[in-house]
């Protein structure tokens, strides 16, 4: 090690190679430890249970029956299809809300932009359970919507299918995590120069053409990020379908929950969780890659 000297006094020492290597790692100890304890270890336990690895689960050894059992059951296939329908329709509905909302926030809100953004975030922070129960009150047979429709005279009997149905789950999921849908789209809109709209208008484009050929290609990455953030939570949700789904709105997330909580089948539940996880990871990867592609007009 060379010592730097000025006027004879030692000012500093050149750090050793080892020190230089370890210094950045030192900063990472705490976050890494947290990650390991709270995330990796539980994941590991999940894996172990799904494969019924002997020493921890007290069973015979390594097996894939939990996975094959799940994948071969046709009932789960139907439930997966229902889940796909519900999640996809809900996601599309979210995009239909989110894009105009983000547009207003990004370009039209003026000095109300920040307060509106704050209001959006706050609204989503409300406990999801409270929101779902609120929907139950709106959609039920004696709920507000049926009451209103009866009073106006549009219907003679209350509509049962509003609650405890696929429809109810779709409605509830359409507004869950909406903030996470809006914000990436809003952020990508902010990056678009508003002058482009004037240019498009000057060249003869109406609002729909401007949206389709100018705005949409430029916010496509934002939309894919929104999908990445929100679709999986929608797909795997089990609180909403439990409370408002009834028998027809039964989703995969509930399958896992029921398997573990009602049947006590930790191994099976673990296996299903892992399958869902793999699916979610694949979807997220595809969505991520698509968000990086520059979309042509």
């Amino acid at each position, binding site marked *: 090690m060379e010592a730097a000297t000025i006027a004879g006094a030692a000012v500093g020492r050149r750090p050793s190679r080892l020190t230089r290597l370890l210094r950045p790692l030192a900063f990472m100890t705490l976050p890494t430890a947290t990650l390991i304890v709270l995330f990796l270890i539980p994941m590991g336990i999940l894996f172990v249970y799904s494969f019924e690895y002997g020493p921890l689960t007290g069973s015979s050894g390594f097996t894939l029956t939990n996975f094959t059992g799940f994948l071969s059951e046709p009932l789960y296939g139907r439930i997966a299809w229902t889940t796909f329908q519900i999640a996809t329709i809900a996601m599309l509905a979210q995009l239909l809300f989110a894009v105009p909302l983000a547009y207003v926030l990004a370009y039209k809100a003026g000095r109300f932009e920040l307060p509106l953004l704050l209001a959006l975030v706050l609204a989503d922070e409300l406990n999801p359970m409270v929101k779902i129960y609120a929907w139950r009150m709106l959609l039920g047979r004696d709920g507000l919507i049926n009451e209103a429709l009866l009073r106006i005279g549009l219907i003679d009997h209350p509509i049962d299918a509003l609650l405890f149905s696929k429809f109810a789950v779709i409605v509830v999921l359409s507004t869950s995590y909406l903030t996470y849908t809006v914000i990436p789209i809003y952020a990508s809109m902010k990056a678009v120069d508003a*002058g*482009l709209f004037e240019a498009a*208008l*000057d*060249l*003869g484009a109406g609002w729909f*053409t401007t949206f389709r050929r*100018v705005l949409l290609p430029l916010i496509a990455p934002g939309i894919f990020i929104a999908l990445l953030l929100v679709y999986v939570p929608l797909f795997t949700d089990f609180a909403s379908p439990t409370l408002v789904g009834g028998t027809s709105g039964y989703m995969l997330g509930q399958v896992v929950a029921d398997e573990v909580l009602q049947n006590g089948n930790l191994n099976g539940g673990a296996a299903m969780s892992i399958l869902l996880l793999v699916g979610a990871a694949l979807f997220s990867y595809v969505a991520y890659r698509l968000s990086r592609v*520059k979309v042509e007009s």
Partner: protein
Amino acid sequence: MSERAMIELRGLSKRYGDALAADSVNLDIGVGEFFSLLGPSGCGKTTTLRMIAGFEEPTSGSVTLDGEDVTWVSPRRRKVNMVFQDYALFPHMTVAENVAFGLKLSKVPKAELRERVARIIASVRLEGYEGRRPAQLSGGQRQRVALARALVNEPAALLLDEPLGALDLKLRKEMQLELKAIQQRTGTTFVYVTHDQEEALTMSDRIAVMNGGRVEQVDDARTVYDRPATEFVADFIGTSNLLSLRVDRREGGTVAMDLGGGMSMVAPDPGEVERTTISITVRPEKVRVGVEPGPGWSCLRGRIAQNVFLGSVTQLIVELQTGEMLTVHELNDDEGATRLAPGAVVSVGWALAHSYPIGQGAPGGAVGPSRAGQAEVIA
């Protein structure tokens, strides 16, 4: 310039709260004219341009385009196109796609579209760049794409909002000449907004000088320069000299201030008999150093206060015997001017025809004929 006006603005005003961005603007812009709106920031030139384009709705007044009242027509449907200050190119489209955008919307047949796009791209000298994205282009190239994108639609008028502002000086000067050439070649009416008076003088057929929302003067470049209508115009365009002339004598269409020793200041008579003092303006390059007093000439004594080398000219600041300061530009074709050191006493003079009374309204109205024969007019 044609008889019929392509663009007519009548009493056009735009109010934002208490502020009047444009105040009763009246303009006639002729077919095929290169017309500039010139003025400092906030003078209303951009607001006026945007009202012609349709991006701003006027508070009052009207916009007529090719005989048709378009005051409330959306920018989509007006037969004008705009070149924006920051170009506003579509970043996700290639040069060719950008340029073709407007044509595609007009449902122009494919073959014709391809041909027109190719032609305009060649016309702005961007052949070979059709497949590039705006991010891969330099500032000057982007500017030309913006121009092509607007021109390809063959609009009745092209509106340009300070398009050369972001370019460096050399490129800007090149583009000025190129824009002028394109304008003359296509015969399109250009309405050009700028705060750079040199730019306006270089390119325009006529200039509207604006200040505080009002149009102060509309004339061709030479008239705006030589015969400014108001103090603001005299001051904004080029370097000006504003001098006070006390009316001692009034004869034969001229007024004169006598200063003793044969020295005097003369100017064309503005015709307002009640005024005992008038303001006149004279351009620095019209002043000569070392002249003798004579008829048809202003001649005063002064002391050199400053001598500044500007390259092609030498700028002299002269403190006149009247106490006022006069800026003189002497061409550096000989060493004459450089020998005039601060403190030196000189006589300066200029021809009657080169001074102009200020604030007298329409050009040609107040300028009388110069005294024939004896006045040596320096062109």
